[in-house]
């Protein structure tokens, strides 16, 4: 899976499931301050990652994710590890 495919899938679930406006989706968008994604929402992001990308996230692995680009990078890296 290419980085572009990861970004496309992540952006799609943020728009569809988290109801985030398309123009808010930027790599440097901060989850908490810009996208209003709170800690409970990260539980649902873990669920969606498992469904969309096929790997299980350990809760503590998500703690360093602050902005959208962190999530793209993390998923890209994990997809490579699990493929």
């Amino acid at each position: 899976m290419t980085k572009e495919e990861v970004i496309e899938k992540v952006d799609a679930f943020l728009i569809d499931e988290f109801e985030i406006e398309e123009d808010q989706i930027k790599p440097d968008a901060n989850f908490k301050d810009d996208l209003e994604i709170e800690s409970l929402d990260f539980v649902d992001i873990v669920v969606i990652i498992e469904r969309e990308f096929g790997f299980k996230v350990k809760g503590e692995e998500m703690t360093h994710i602050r902005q959208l680009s962190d999530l793209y990078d993390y998923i890209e890296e994990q997809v490579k590890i699990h493929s």
Partner: protein
Amino acid sequence: MKRVVITGMGVYSTIGKNIEEVNHSLYNGVSGIGIDAKRIDDGFRSPLTGIIERPILKGVLPRRMRIGLPEQGEYAYVATMEALEMAQIDEDFRLKNEVGILYGNDSSAVPVINAIDIVRAKKDTTLVGSGSIFQSMNSTITMNLSVILKLTGVNFTISGACASSSHAIGMAMVLIQQGLQDIIICGGGQEVNAESMGSFDGLSAFSINTNDPTKASRPFDRDRDGLVPSGGAATVIVESYESAIKRGAPILAELTGYGFSSNGEHISVPNVEGPTKSLEKALKYAGLCAQDIDYINAHATSTIIGDMNEAQALYNIFGSKTPINSTKSMTGHEMWMCGASEIIYSILMMQNSYIAPTINFENPDEYSAKLNISGNRIEKNIDTFLSNSFGFGGTNSTLIVKKVK
């Protein structure tokens, strides 16, 4: 003690998705009962159930507020918004004034089952998702609505089986009479799905009269063969008389009596003495005698023993004259919701001067023959009514409501 009134009501049920639709159904004797094919597939003894559509709340509520709501929470949200609008209580008012919530609910089966299925299959609890816990607890409706509506008053759920929401209204009445709270959102919610009803179906308490589902729920009728499970949600705004007057809110009715008791006997088989005690307590609380009651909304669920025992309790106190009906003949048994919904149904009848028919009441049995029950609608002025709700464990609740002139 402070006087307690009802200033708003809202309902989402199998016989209508709002007050106006429900009033039309009650007036015309419309049934909300049908067949659920899933129950046939799942090996249920009875596929009969109230038929209800889930409201679509996407675009109405933000995701975070939506995902904690189970099915009955969605119904409760819709019913509560209708009640708040009628009572003229908007968000600005709720932010500046203490409003509480006491709601009846006694199960939330589907989220619990789904969560356990995921944990068993995936061996990872995180994959259950963040909404599940808030959907799964019995207090799901009060915990969600208190956050959605930004409430700062009393906030808890009452689980008293099929008397849950009647007790919730009774408790609200007591808190307001004591001056502890001025406005309480009160009601009951009931999920409508196969998963929550399997264990109840297993007790053979449900009607299997599937030839015509609309004829299956037949309270007090000689040929009744069991109840039909149903649900939805019903909300009333319970408020002190002074607060309602001060706000210029519409006063729909006054709550004047609350009676309660426990049978202290069998877990599922009701008796005559417990309901009798609840009825007597409610009359005493209201300072009324039996002749003061113009209409009785019976609990009568269409079970053989339940209806028989309630009929005896009602006859012992009220004799043969007081008009009695069971709106469960149309709605089926709305369980955790029925105490609140039947207060609303009865207020609608009081407002519009009629007693809804007990549909399917064609032939009385030995006990119901002594009571004033009609299979047809009766045009009648109602100034004061009484509503019974009874539940497993022998919990009984009786409310008395009167017109404010």
